[in-house]
């Protein structure tokens, strides 16, 4: 009996250890980057010889970095609500529409997610340049929404699927118009899905490199600025910008989650 038990524990142990090691592996570069961002040296070496806020000060005062930061933030700020709106409408349509054709439409809707970004970028590049829309915020926004939308549809769709329609029916039976039922009953309940979709949209847009790289010539976003600076100078400014981006996304996640719980499920707002 003990022998079998030992083997069982060993199995549990193996799984646990692998999980822990994997998680440590996932964290490692982030931790290093965060440490590096506080280096006062002029170049990247680990561990840093001296510490300071030098590089944060640099990126927050350098014209090129500020320009890229501003543009990335602007684009992401437009992309997120737009993706939510389009994602919600599309997911709702899939959920409440006829079952026939649902599969095909779903596949078409999530297609941009599985296509290599180089292919998408190249295709959009030719259209954008022909329309003289390169370097425009519009082009960036449209491109980013396209790749963020599939995940939003999946996430919101999953929430819609588990949503108990009787709640909506109850509201309507009490006299609420359908849109009111949707607004006051549906949305709060699927909030976790919406929050997840919003976070992911923001991150996708902010971090997007390849397609934006194709569509830009001079007016760049943060990832492209990082890439350009890498071509010329491998300095800790990229660690600092990475630290900044991390704080930004963590802050945003915290803010969005503060309004509602993500781990628990339903909570109807009054």
């Amino acid at each position, binding site marked *: 009996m003990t022998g079998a038990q030992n083997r069982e524990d060993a199995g549990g142990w193996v799984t*646990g250890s692998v999980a822990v090691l994997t998680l440590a592996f996932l964290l490692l570069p982030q931790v290093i980057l965060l440490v590096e961002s506080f280096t006062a040296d002029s170049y990247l070496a680990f561990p840093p010889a001296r510490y300071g806020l030098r590089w944060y000060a640099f990126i927050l005062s350098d014209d090129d970095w500020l320009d890229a930061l501003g543009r990335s933030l602007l684009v992401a700020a437009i992309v997120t609500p737009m993706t939510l709106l389009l994602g919600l409408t599309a997911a709702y349509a899939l959920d409440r529409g006829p079952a026939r054709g649902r599969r095909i439409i779903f596949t078409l809707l999530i297609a941009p997610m*599985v296509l*290599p970004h180089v292919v998408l970028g190249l295709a959009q590049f030719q259209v954008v340049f022909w329309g003289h829309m390169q370097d425009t915020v519009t082009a960036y926004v449209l491109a980013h929404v396209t790749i963020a939308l599939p995940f939003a549809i999946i996430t919101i769709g999953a929430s819609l699927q588990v949503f108990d329609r009787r709640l909506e029916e109850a509201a309507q039976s009490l006299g609420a118009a359908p849109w009111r039922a949707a607004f006051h009953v549906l949305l709060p309940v699927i909030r976790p899905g919406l929050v997840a979709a919003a976070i992911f949209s923001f991150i996708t847009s902010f971090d997007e490199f390849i397609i934006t790289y194709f569509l830009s010539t001079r007016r760049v976003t943060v990832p492209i600025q990082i890439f350009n600076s890498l071509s010329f100078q491998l300095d800790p400014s990229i660690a600092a910008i990475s630290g900044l981006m991390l704080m930004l996304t963590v802050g945003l996640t915290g803010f969005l989650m503060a309004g509602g719980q993500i781990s628990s499920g339903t909570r109807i707002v009054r």
Partner: protein
Amino acid sequence: MRPLGRGRGRTCEAVMKDGTLEPPEGDSRRPWLLLVPSASLYLFTFAVPLIVLVAASFEKTTGGVTVSPFSIDNYQSFFADGVALRAVLHTLYLSFVIATCCLLFGYPVAMTMRRSGGRMRLLLLFLVVSPLLTSVIVRNVAWILVLGREGLINVAWRRLGLTTEPLRLMYNDLGVVIGVVHVYLAFVVLPVFASLTAIDPAVEESAASLGATRARVFWHVTLPLSMPGVFAGFTLVFVLCVGLYLTPVVMGGNFVVTISMIIGDLVRTQFDMGRASAFAVMVLLIVAGLLWLSRQFARRYGVAT
């Protein structure tokens, strides 16, 4: 029954007198109107560009000048130039290795998440997703500091006396695999986790109560029931890997060449839009083929997707 609110006093049974009320159990066409916004977007950012892409793939250009508007030379060079096809095969090989590694390391993480309580789960989720919060290029640069000859790992390895020759963890396929698994792990963990949580614990408990060891319960009950998630995760990572562009450049030392790198180079350096488009169309077809294969496989083995 007095209707509440300012609405026109509809009840569940109300019919489409004014055409704006939909029955709760939707089987009317109307919800599909909600697809219009997304469809319009995709028309401009997806459909039209793809059509242009296919059209461009037949243009033969030399030095930026269109030599012929319709030619299959570009497609021919895909198979004949000795570089593109090789890159595709190597990319597929890498994709397989990466997807498998993601599964091997991601499954235990998903299982641990399943066993954890609410707060812990959230923390683990955050950890798993955290690589996605960093820009791909910056991440790869950080890896250099870890995997290089004088990086963390080699320094630690040497201190421990385990080797005198530094380990070659970068500038090769291994470096690329490490770099990519780091990011794409999340794409396996999430679907597997979703599948695992959908399993009714009662099934596992009853198997255990009938005398099965934990290992047996896992192999014969848990694992098979989690296959949909496993499958979805593996396919997703595999397909995403076909598009690998930046990571091989930084972590593979230019000796690792993927098909997306070749397309990128054709556009940015050689300005050969025709060939780039043709190669891109081929990649599209490959991805579509992979997805189709995956569905066939899923259907045959009864894995619901």
